[in-house]
């Protein structure tokens, strides 16, 4: 759920950028370390990022007839891990602003926080917690709750920026939350189903790619071996 260019007041835009910054610094440091130890990991990360960008531009099937796009947050977090995903997600959001006029430069910080930080971390957490219940359930919950977490954060960001003149923050949260609940919960469920289909197909046909599910994990062990 992108907040569009210029929509947030300057103070809010700046504040969300500051909030997002530490996560990006940690992710960027990690990527810098990984690529110093294995220069070829750059290609892998760039391919993964290009994939994430294209995924977010595909149209999601919809029951209501409205058109929407998957966030790819859940899949990305499961495959690549949340700290790397923060940086990849930030670059994807930058490209979405520059190439599709989707989102914006001043609202980049707020969008990074909801879509590249909170969404992936919640998805990753759900995946780890629900993993014993079976792969399908864990993947579904991760993708769906990751999406819902993103929408919840966006709702909060909008409510903070535009408190209701009559009922203040509570009214604004009800208002924006109500719209998102109606439009986004079905989409989150659809994205959950889609992600299950994707992971099942990957498990069946491209096991060696999923050793990279290890992506995060594999790079980690490689880093330790190098040390």
């Amino acid at each position, binding site marked *: 759920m992108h907040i*569009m*260019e*210029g*929509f947030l007041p*300057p103070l809010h835009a700046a504040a969300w950028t500051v909030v997002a910054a530490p996560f990006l610094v940690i992710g*960027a440091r990690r*990527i*810098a370390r990984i*690529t*110093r130890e294995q*220069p*070829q990991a*750059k*290609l*892998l*990360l*760039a*391919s*993964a*990022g*290009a*994939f994430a*960008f*294209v*995924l977010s*531009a*595909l149209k999601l*099937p919809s029951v209501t007839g409205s058109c929407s796009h998957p966030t790819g947050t859940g899949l990305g977090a499961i*495959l690549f891990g949340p700290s790397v995903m923060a*940086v990849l997600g930030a*670059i994807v959001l*930058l*490209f979405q*602003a*520059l*190439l*599709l*006029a*989707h989102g*914006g430069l*001043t609202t980049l910080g707020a969008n990074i926080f909801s879509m590249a930080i909170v969404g992936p971390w919640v998805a990753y957490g759900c995946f780890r917690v629900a993993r014993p219940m079976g792969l399908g359930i864990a993947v579904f919950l991760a993708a769906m709750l990751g999406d819902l977490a993103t929408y919840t954060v966006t709702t909060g960001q909008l409510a903070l920026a*535009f408190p*209701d*003149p*009559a*009922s203040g923050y*509570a*009214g*604004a949260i009800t*208002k*924006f939350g109500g719209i998102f609940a109606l439009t986004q919960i079905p989409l989150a469920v*659809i994205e959950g189903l*889609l992600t299950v*289909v*994707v992971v099942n197909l*990957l498990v069946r*046909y*491209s096991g060696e*790619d999923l050793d*990279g599910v290890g992506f995060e994990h594999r790079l980690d062990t490689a880093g330790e071996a190098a040390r």
Partner: protein
Amino acid sequence: MLPIDRFAWTNRWSSHHPGERMLLAGGLLILTLVLPPVSTAPLVLITMTAATVLGAGVPVSAFIRALAVPAGFLLAGLPFIVLSLDLDGAPSLVVSAEGARMALEVGLRSLAAMSCLVGLSLTTPASELIPWLRRVGVPQAVLEIALLMYRLLFVVAARATAGREAQEARLGYTSFGRSVRSLGLLTAALLSRSLARARRLEIGLAARGFEGELRVLSRPRALSPRRLATAGATLLAVGVGGLSLSQVLA
């Protein structure tokens, strides 16, 4: 798939130094955010449209098309700022003067800011903007990944379009269940192809002695003092115009 990118490479200003366009669009974007929106935003919108269409020679239809999608989202969102929810007693929706004023300001500010973003991205390729992130402290490795990503995403996008067409031709999107299944197949195939491509690139580059740095040729372009001065004067004029207009309105 990405019309904005096509104009970014072919417009009249593409041979100029990107810093000039960044000064104009970035400066206007900042002015839009900090000055009173009701008077400043229309000036910014007009200036940015004129610069992109008359200056850089981007067709006005392309400019409008690029602006139309986010502007549509903006229009859809504004009513929720105008309407205000009264929670005392029975919850009811009312139109408040305060809400209407806020919606007008946000709408104008957002539209003007979008015109800056669209103007910049229609005249400057993303690959020329990314290296500037170095100045705000983004590590080199991340920038290189972003630049590589920019080069790869068109390849992945072409594959996605081809796959989607093939699936549609085979009635892959005729019902909801099939659509989810088809999109899942497409996504899984795209991912494993992307990773396979990365592995092939790794091998190819390793064979050529890749040690972690990808160097590409870029055209050397000098900053033109005349164009910088024009951009600066435009910013000053818009700033002063916006401020004085707001005093007239008040």
